[in-house]
């Protein structure tokens, strides 16, 4: 529908609602910055100082970053075979896609609740193990890093499947055929053709998953409890329990800069990995 016709003022009003929504977003980001950097009417780094001075807060950042890297890598490892399966399953793809999409779109809070029912001290796994007589005391499966990592990985796998599957579907069938005709084994074809060409999807997944994980609130809060805090759970507490908006804003800006730096690093790794393609 590209025609680029003559522009009139009344027609450009069609763009106005979108511009208002985008402006709202950018104003909200601006408000975030102004509440973090301003104290009693003047520029101040007080709220950042409050975060930097606390060694226990540093642990929160380390935990968030390390867990998120683990989650992103685990989720990609789990989702790759699923994406391959969906890619191969021509006839059944739509049905299998629903099996991926439903867990993706069902509310985060419901999926996390599922893990509480599974992992909790009175949960399914503990009840099952107790019934088998393997354990006398409930095993601690949540309210620790393990619980957060299990929950976040599960929550994020569906997106990774979709991202990798999109890459796989854009591979031309001829390439694979050519490789097989020239005598490559199934594994060699995978190693030399399929895997490299699916890397863009893998990197998109890594990036989005990492971002979603560092910015998560609900899953870390419910599966990590109050002792094993994520940056997200800390932010939630500052807003909802201590009503300290400025400090929450300072936390958010730390998180934002952290994710920006991480994105640049992931992009650099991607560029190295994709060197030679195209």
């Amino acid at each position, binding site marked *: 529908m590209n025609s680029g016709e003559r*522009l009139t003022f009344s027609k450009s009003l069609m763009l106005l*609602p979108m511009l208002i*929504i985008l402006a709202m977003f950018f104003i909200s*980001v601006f408000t975030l910055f102004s509440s973090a950097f301003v104290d009693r009417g003047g520029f101040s780094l007080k709220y950042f100082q409050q975060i930097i001075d606390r060694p226990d807060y540093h642990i929160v950042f380390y935990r968030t970053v390390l867990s998120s890297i683990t989650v992103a890598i685990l989720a990609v490892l789990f989702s790759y075979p699923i994406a391959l399966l969906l890619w191969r399953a021509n006839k059944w793809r739509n049905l299998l896609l629903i099996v991926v999409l439903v867990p993706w779109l069902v*509310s985060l809070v419901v999926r996390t609740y599922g893990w509480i029912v599974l992992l909790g001290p009175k949960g399914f796994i503990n009840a099952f193990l107790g019934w088998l007589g393997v354990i006398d005391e409930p095993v601690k499966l949540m309210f620790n890093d393990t619980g957060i990592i299990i929950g976040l990985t599960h929550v994020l796998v569906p997106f990774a499947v979709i991202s990798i599957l*999109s890459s796989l579907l854009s591979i031309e069938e001829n390439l694979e055929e050519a490789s097989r005709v020239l005598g490559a084994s199934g594994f060699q074809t995978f190693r030399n053709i399929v895997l490299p060409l699916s890397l863009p999807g893998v990197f998109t997944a890594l990036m989005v998953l990492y*971002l979603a994980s560092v*910015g998560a609130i609900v899953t870390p809060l419910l599966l990590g409890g109050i002792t094993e805090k994520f940056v997200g759970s800390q932010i939630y507490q500052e807003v909802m329990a201590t009503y300290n908006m400025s400090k929450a804003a300072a936390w*958010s800006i730390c998180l934002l800069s952290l994710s920006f730096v991480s994105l640049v690093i992931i992009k650099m790794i991607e560029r190295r990995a994709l060197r030679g393609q195209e």
Partner: protein
Amino acid sequence: MRTMSPLSRTLGIVFLLALPLPIFIVFGASFNGSAYIQFPPESYSLRWYIEAFTDPRWARAVGTSLWIAAVTSVVVTTISFMAAYFTLRYAPRINTMLELAIFSPLFFPHACMGVAAVALMAKLGIVGTPGAIILAHVIVTVPFSYRPVHVALRSVDPDLIRAAEVMGASELRALKDIILPICRSGILTSLLFTGIISFDEVTVTMFLIGPEITTLPVQIFTFIQDDASPVLAAISTISVIITFLAIVLLERVAGLTFFVQRSGS
């Protein structure tokens, strides 16, 4: 030609089946007769469903989430359609800039979105109102609405519109009789997809609720923190069924190919 080694096929099937597992566990737990999860269950009953349906707080939360999702999806799809139509037809040059702005919220961690939203809504003085929740949902869902609508509009053959105009159709007539029918599946994808996201959104919404209003996912979240009564399993099952029906509807009316398309192509 399209073969797969038995090992990777098995892994794929096992991992795929593990995805809905927690949802099935919740489903099973909702029919549990006792006050906490037991294995093996001692009794089965529908008492949690009865409690879910008789407690007015749950009915209200479901209602609120449904109407907010409906309003959000219609508003955001209309905004996206107008913007995409205008850009493609009258100002193709600004498209790159516009898309950059529209997709930038995607690179924002959700926790930051939540704080930014509550900071803005507090300035506007609307925290705890439906307006704040809808505005936040529209901001969050715009990228997911713009893409399917823009892809659909781009696929409309400009000659068709020109033909309609040569035959004397007004711009509005061409829009109604030619463009909208061709874009039907893109528009439906946008409506249902953004509706589902809004219905299930929790991370940003939980900062914006108030004593007067809360949504279903946020109320589930609040209840999990207070006490994890199995009534939550029944409520969660109801929420899963609503989302599931919306996805099946989406598959029927528009197909699911949108989800596995590369954005560039």
